[in-house]
């Protein structure tokens, strides 16, 4: 309803902060950390692990895990901004992971393996992009097909095996990417953050971001301004594929092993959740990469909380759902406008009384 657009500005700063989607994400993140700390008093403790040459502790492993979510959530943000969706990211992770592991086992140089995997991700993303932009297929169904087929491609690459490259001698750099540390901070998190910053800078310092949003808001009007929507659509799916490949490397290099069924499974849903928690609408339009990044960290944090609280594995989906529902409900305009709405009602009643009198 149009009335829900009517946010109240009288509340000033407090109102604006409460009205901001990011605020509730931050609150949720802090709340989860507090809960974990109550259960596990050493949750916030960081120690120096001489074994790995980096910081160690629950927060660090959480950041390590969040790297892959950061990657797919970033790509997903751009895609969703164009009013599309990319359900294939999880499968692309598996394909990219399978490629790198298979190449390593086959004796390929590790850097070549990395490059080829990224290229494979880019290619799958581009195929998505072509189908959506040139053939005009619906993104949901196109990437759903790619999600099915991608898994199959991963299986074909490894002949259905879970290829293990942990014994391969030259794999060190890849292993480091996922498990190493930069100045004590997990390398994959740093890399992911840098990539997010680069994507953010490119999107916002050039006109790319505006054009993506424009296509997402009104594709025909965008075309009439001289934007080439096809090019934009192609671009976002290609980027999403590439970033999913990076995520796939993070996920497989962490254990130097690809699992054709499990690698990246269900992660498209997590990525979409991260984006939505971050305040980007699934209907397309305005996007917030910072919000999505925060969303990605929250997803990692929810999973960490599940482990820390020792929630029965049977109950984890329900817990996950509960947290997501709470966050999304708190972000609802209805909740933001609660106080303003009550004030309005009171004023209205008063004025009606005045009329009656």
């Amino acid at each position, binding site marked *: 309803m149009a009335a829900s657009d009517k946010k109240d500005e009288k509340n000033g700063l407090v109102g604006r902060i409460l009205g901001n989607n990011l605020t509730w994400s931050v609150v949720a993140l802090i709340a989860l950390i507090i809960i974990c700390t109550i259960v596990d008093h050493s949750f916030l403790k960081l120690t120096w692990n001489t074994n790995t040459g980096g910081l160690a502790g629950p927060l660090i492993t959480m950041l390590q895990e969040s790297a892959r979510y950061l990657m797919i959530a970033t790509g997903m943000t751009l895609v969703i901004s164009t009013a599309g969706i990319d359900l294939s990211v999880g499968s692309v992770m598996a394909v990219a992971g399978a490629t790198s592991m298979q190449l390593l086992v086959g004796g390929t140089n590790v850097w070549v393996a990395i490059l080829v995997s990224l290229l494979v991700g880019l290619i799958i993303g581009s195929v998505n992009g072509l189908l959506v932009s040139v053939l005009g297929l619906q993104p949901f169904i196109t990437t759903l097909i790619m999600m099915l087929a991608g898994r199959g491609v991963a299986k*074909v690459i490894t002949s259905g095996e879970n290829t293990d490259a942990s014994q391969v001698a030259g794999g060190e750099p890849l292993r480091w990417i996922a498990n190493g540390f930069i100045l004590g901070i997990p390398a994959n998190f740093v890399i992911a953050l840098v990539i997010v910053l680069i994507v953010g800078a490119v999107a916002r310092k050039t006109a790319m971001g505006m054009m993506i949003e424009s296509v997402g808001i009104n594709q025909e009007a965008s075309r009439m301004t001289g934007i080439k929507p096809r090019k934009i659509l192609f671009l976002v799916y290609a980027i999403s594929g590439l970033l999913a490949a990076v995520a796939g490397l993070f996920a497989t290099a962490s254990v130097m092993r690809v699992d054709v069924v499990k690698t990246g499974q269900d992660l498209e849903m997590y990525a979409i959740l991260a984006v*939505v928690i971050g305040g980007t609408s699934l209907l397309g339009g305005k996007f917030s990469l910072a919000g999505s990044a925060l969303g990605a960290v929250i997803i990692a944090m929810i999973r960490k909380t599940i482990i820390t609280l020792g929630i029965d594995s049977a*109950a984890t989906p329900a817990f*996950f759902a509960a947290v997501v529902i709470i966050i999304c409900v708190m972000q609802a305009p209805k909740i933001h406008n609660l106080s303003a709405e009550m004030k309005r009602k009171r004023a209205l009643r008063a004025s009606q009384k005045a009329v009656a009198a």
Partner: protein
Amino acid sequence: MTTATTVNAPAKKAKGGKFNAQMIPTIAAVVIFILMLIMGQVMFGTYFRLGFISSLFIDHAYLIILAVAMTLPILTGGIDLSVGAIVAITAVVGMKLLNGGAPAPLVLVIMLLIGAAFGLLAGVLIEEFNMQPFIATLSTMFLARGIASIISTDSLTMPENNGFGWIGGEGWKIIDNPKISNDLSINLGVIIAVVVVVFGYILLHHTRTGRTIYAIGGSRSSAELMGLPVKRTQYVIYLTSATLAALASIVYTANIGSAKNTVGVGWELDAVASVVIGGTIITGGFGYVLGSVLGALVRSILEPLTTDFGVPAEAVQIVVGIMILVFVVLQRAVTVLQKE
């Protein structure tokens, strides 16, 4: 030969100006379904067997129901991702109750009510808290599956003489040949599916609620400004889809006689694929229930075909994916050509 004539027919009609272009994808689905059957028959000789046809329907009665259920939200540009998980939770609860000695009619009602409860929750999240259907039903999907696993992770079977299994089971043999592969049989599950299809058709084409669903799919804000009961309709949609999912659960569990928390993983995607193959546009506004039924049948026949063609195991998913893609591209091509 067959192809040429069947495909040409609608095109000719279109020139007359009477033919509705929106129906083309659905008609394409009919044609392709028939072609696939013919191809299967010619190459492998088993696709026209009555037994094959019977089990196509009996084994997929649940999918037909889910496809009808999924058609409603998709017509509005929404989606219901929770249908698979609702099948799981209602099945688990149903089996638990049956084993606890509850009478079958009561169990049926409770299962439907649980489905409805999840639909209501989705409706509240969507309408009251502005959550997008995708996210709202993704949440209820996690929730339903989670609760199902909390209740039980065992494989539960029906007790003997439960008054429930007759819904599925072998049903009736309409044509009883000496060989089972030539028997034409039907069970209550299939009849329920047919009733659901008729219900869906009447709802969408002969009630104001149904027309409001299409209007929302065309433009929600216009529908609101036209004074249509958009909010109420949205509730109806998600309540119906979730309740139908519970009904699908009844049909499925009655058919196999057991249930489990892992049942129905990925079925929402099969349902979406069916709906799309049947010509409904995922962004809403256009589509038909009957198309979705055909979509479900086409979707169901993909696996037997890959099996008979001996597609290597690793590539099965690729082939299924490509077949759906071919479908979608074909429909798109037909639609574009039609516009020209």
